[in-house]
Structure formats: structure tokens, C-alpha cells
């Protein structure tokens, strides 16, 4: 049928793409079951179940969790639990706030004409195209300067002093998530016929009821995909978080980076595997929503 289908070039390219995209992931997952604590080469699965961990050199001989030894190890790690908690708290909070702001911005840009509209539209792309490290340094500078002034002006001391932490990370995440949400929702609104809203008002619904009962349900798939995209971006953001976090606000990417600088045990792989599963689920959901949306449009 398609002459390209059997072309050796296509086959080679496909194999290479899959190799470079997925082999590292497969390897990473495989190594999370590694019996070797050093985790340089794969020494086979942790072989047996027993009531306690038996080590022989750097090899784990048996464990209560068997091959899932490093996952159990991970579960016992309070730092990981805290980092995971922080990551989720930040991601959920930032997603909710960014989705609300981003959706409102999208509606405003779609519906109203105002003087600085071209500028506002363009400014949306800046946080997306700007190198993340530049934005990271930018927000860090902003916060340090701002906090310095506030601390000095109100003569704050001790715990009352403003400092980097959960709040600064969350605010920075909101800042870089809003444009993504706005652009996704805007794409959805592009095809939105104003007559739906006119019809609702014609039938007696005021502006708020019209939004609640007609506009919002109709753009909900767009809002949901925007929110999920923002959520996944927040979950694995490293650079901006690196610059804006402080004591007690370590997120998973920051924690893993810290581990790598010391020793790499398969625990890191176990953590990464769990994480990949979470992000994959989110992306899968996103795809499902988008597919359903497309079906509705056709």
C-alpha cells in the first residue's frame, strides 16, 4: 500500500527512535530491581524473600520484599515521603490557581478587545520560550529583593522573616503554568460560537448562570487538558524549583538531584519508576480527554 512502509530507512529510524526514547526508561525500571547496591551493573533481581535483609558485600541476598526490596526501602524513607508530599502539594495548589487564572485570561483574550491585547497575547509566549534557567534566576532575584525590602521595612526577625519555601515555589510554578493553561484553553475557545451564550441569555440566564451552565461545561475539556498539562509540568520541574525552594520545601526532583550527588542506590530507580507511573497516568488521562474532545468535534 504505502511505499514508505517497507522502506529500510523508516524501519531503522523507528528502531532508533524507540531505542533512545524507551531503552533508558526500560533500563531505569529494570535497575530498580537490582540486587547490587552499587547499581553500576545489573546483578540480577534480589533473589529471595526472608524476614530480614541479608547483605553480602554490596549485594542484597534476600529481603522481606524480595525483588521489590528497593521499593520497600523507599517506603521507609521519610525524606522521600516529605519530598513527595511537597511536590504534590505544590503541584495541586499551583494547578488549581494557574487553571483559574489561565482560563480567565483565555476568555478575556478571546472575547474582549482592549488596547494592550496584542502585547498581552505576545507576553504569554515569553515564559514558554525563555530559558527556564533565566526565569529561575529572575524569580529568585525578585523574591530576594522583595523579601529584603519587606523584612527591613517591617523590621522582621527570626521566624517572621520572609524567606524562600513552599510559597515561593508555588508562586513561581503558577507563574510559568499560566501561559500553558491559557494557550490550551484559548485553542478550545477558538471554535466556540458566541451564539451559545446568546442563546442562554435569550432563555433568561444572566451572565454568571450563562458561564456556569453553558460556557464552562462546553470549554471544560479544554480547561481539563490545560490543567493536566500544567500539573505534569509542575511535578517534574527542576530548574525553577531549584532557585526558589528553601528549607522544608524540597520537591522530588530536587531530592533526587541531591541523592545523585552522594550515592546512587537502586532506591533512586525505584523512586523514578513510581514517578514515571504517576506522570504516565496523568499524560494518559490527558490523551483520553483530548481524544474524546476530538470525537465530539467531528
Amino acid at each position, binding site marked *: 500500500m504505502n511505499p514508505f512502509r517497507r522502506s529500510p530507512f523508516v524501519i531503522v529510524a523507528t528502531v532508533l527512535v524507540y531505542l533512545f526514547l524507551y531503552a533508558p526508561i526500560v533500563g531505569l525500571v529494570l535497575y530498580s530491581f537490582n540486587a547490587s547496591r552499587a547499581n553500576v551493573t545489573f546483578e540480577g533481581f534480589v533473589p529471595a524473600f526472608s524476614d530480614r535483609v541479608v547483605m553480602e558485600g554490596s549485594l542484597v541476598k534476600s529481603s522481606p520484599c524480595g525483588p521489590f526490596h528497593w521499593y520497600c526501602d523507599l517506603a521507609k524513607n521519610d525524606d522521600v515521603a516529605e519530598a513527595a508530599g511537597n511536590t504534590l502539594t505544590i503541584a495541586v495548589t499551583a494547578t488549581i490557581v494557574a487553571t483559574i487564572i489561565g482560563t480567565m485570561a483565555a476568555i478575556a483574550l478571546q472575547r474582549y478587545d482592549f488596547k494592550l491585547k496584542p502585547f498581552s497575547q505576545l507576553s504569554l509566549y515569553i515564559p514558554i520560550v525563555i530559558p527556564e534557567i533565566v526565569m529561575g534566576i529572575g524569580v529568585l532575584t525578585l523574591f530576594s529583593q522583595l523579601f529584603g525590602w519587606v523584612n527591613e521595612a517591617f523590621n522582621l526577625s527570626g521566624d517572621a522573616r520572609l524567606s524562600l519555601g513552599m510559597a515561593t515555589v508555588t508562586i513561581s510554578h503558577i507563574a510559568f503554568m499560566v501561559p500553558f493553561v491559557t494557550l490550551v484553553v484559548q485553542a478550545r475557545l477558538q471554535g466556540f460560537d458566541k451564539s451559545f451564550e*446568546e*442563546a442562554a*441569555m*435569550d432563555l433568561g440566564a444572566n451572565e454568571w448562570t450563562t458561564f456556569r451552565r453553558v460556557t464552562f461545561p462546553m470549554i471544560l475539556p479544554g480547561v481539563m487538558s490545560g490543567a493536566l498539562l500544567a500539573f505534569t509540568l509542575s511535578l517534574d520541574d527542576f530548574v525553577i524549583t531549584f532557585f526558589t525552594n528553601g528549607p522544608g520545601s524540597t520537591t522530588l526532583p530536587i531530592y533526587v538531584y541531591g541523592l545523585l550527588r552522594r550515592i546512587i542506590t537502586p532506591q533512586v530507580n525505584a523512586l523514578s519508576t513510581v514517578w514515571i507511573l504517576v506522570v504516565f497516568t496523568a499524560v494518559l488521562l490527558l490523551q483520553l480527554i483530548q481524544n474524546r474532545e476530538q470525537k465530539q468535534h467531528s
Partner: protein
Amino acid sequence: MTSEFAVEMRDVVKRFITPEGNEMAAVDRVTMQIKNGEFFSMLGSSGCGKTTSLRMIAGFEWPTEGEVYIEGNAMGHTPPFQRKVNTVFQSYALFQHMTVYQNLAFGLEMEGAKEEEIKKRVGRALEMVQLTGMDRRRPRQLSGGQQQRVALARALVKTPDVLLLDEPLGALDLKLRKEMQLELKALQQQLGITFIYVTHDQEEALTMSDRIAVMSKGQVQQMGTPVEIYERPSNKFVADFIGESNFLEGKIKSLSKNEASVFVPSLNTEVTGMPISAGLVKGEDVVVSIRPEKIRIADKDTKSNNMFRARVTNTVYIGADTHIYVDVHDAKMKVLEQNRISRLDPKSFYVVGQDVWLLLMPENTLVLKKD
């Protein structure tokens, strides 16, 4: 009902700023009075201001100048949800995330109606548009014609004083459209509601309306019954827009109380005894308008007034009618003949090159101001 008029527009102007930054009047000093229980149409080609006028009655747009009255009350900036009119949209605008039942119930919920009452009224409305049993369907599971009926029922279930219809049949195929025209008219008569109907289809307007406002360039060109509009168009635009007409330029030769004689250079003669419209003066340049079906064609000269020798240049057979194109002196005219006799009979038609006689009947020939 407190007012004689269901809807009134007084000197309404609506100006828009075009993307190029120019000001443009979409509606330019429109005044209309629409009586209670009337089937009123606004007819015109796109951009004539008919839809903008309708949207100002609905409350989606506010007039730049002038005022819209509904049941005698000045509307000012009253929002759509506080006006007792309902709209059937050209695109139907059915809520895709709701079932047919929910679409119809929406407007009643907004009134605060109880569930029992909603159920009863939605049932009745669905019955009225012959969609009983479809209440659980989603709009996209329905055919175009069915969606159109849902849109109609959704507006009617609110029992408005005035129903606004914006080219509601535009998306339907010809046969269904003709059926719906008759159905809509019957429904309007049965309910006794005022219908304001926007269309660009002259046949549709003539079929259904009690009165028609012919619009062009934001202004009402003529307002009247279908017969008035067709038989006595008040200017060349209306004569040209509604149906077909032969236009012959001329100059008024003599003028009596109700008759005019016009010298037509292209016929090199005078056309006499025609009824006149107001405001014409002797010596004025005018246009003589004759509908193709109002011209008699004969193969013998009967020595009547306004009889002209002509030569057939082309004939087009359309089934029910034949269009005959003729040259009369320097003028080209179109004559429409009904095929009362089968075209298979060779005596039943005129052939190209044949000499014929045309009879213009003065009572069906109009003298109009030159635009």
C-alpha cells in the same frame, strides 16, 4: 398586552467600527412598527442590516441612536435575559452538553418553574414540533431538521410574546425548507404569537409573511404586504430585488392626477396610461418597470395602445414556463409565458427570429424614480 405594537423600532441607528477603523452604519434610521400577532419579515441580502435589527430587538446589541420598544416599553440597555422575546438562531445554538429535554427545560428553570410544570410544558412543546420521545437524545444525534425543531421548541416553550427567527431554515434542504415554511406559518397562526422573521429568501418571505420590510444598506426600502411589495414596489431596488423586472429608462412626458405617459428612447415611443407613485414631476427622468409575466405576447398586431413590434432572440424552456428574450427596437426585454399547452405542439411556442407583438398593460407597468 399593553401596546398596539408588539415591537417598535424608532429611528434606530447602529454603528460599528470596522477593522480598518472606519465607522459604518449597519442599521441606518430604521423605523418599524410590528403589530401583535403579526408574521413580520425582514428581507434583504447579507449586510442589509436585517440581522443587526433583529439582534437589537433580542438585546444582543444596543442601538447607537434611537430606541427599541417591546410591548410599548423602551428597552434601552435591558439585557436579553430581561426581555420577553425569544430567538431561534440560524446555527440553532443547541447546548451540545445537554439532552433535548435539558435544552428545553433550561429556559423554564431560569424562570424558576417547578419540576412538575417543566415536565408538562416541555412535553407539550415537544409534541407541538412532533419530537415526542426524543427528549433523551443529544442534539448531535438528531438530523438537521430535527435540530431545527428543537431550537424552535426551546424558544416556544417560554411562551414569549414575540418570537425572533434568524434565517432558521437556511441550513435545511429545499424540500424540507418548503415543508417547514408552511408548518411555521400554521404554528404562528395557531399560537397567535408575533413572529419576526429574518431571511434573504424572497420566496420564503412572500410565502409566510403578513408584512415584509425590504431592507438594503441599513435602511427599510419598503414595508408592506407581500402583494403590495410585489405589485407596487416603491423603488427600483425593490422591483429588482423581489422577483424580476424589465427596466426601461425614460422621461415623463405628461402627468395627470393618476396616470403618466413616459417617452422611452430605447422603444422610440411613448408608453401611456401608467399608474404613478407619489413625488414624480413632469420632465423627470424615470424608470419604467414591467414584470416579465405581465407582458402579453402575440403573433398578430391587435392595434392596442402600448403594443410594440419585437423579435425573438432566444427562448429557454423551464418546464412550467418558457422565458422568451426579445429585442424591441433598441431595448432588450424578457417575457415569461406559461406553458399551458404542451411544448410538443409546434404551434405552442415562439422560435428565435420570429416577429412578435408585445402588449404592455399599463395597469401592470410602473413608473419609478430613477435611483
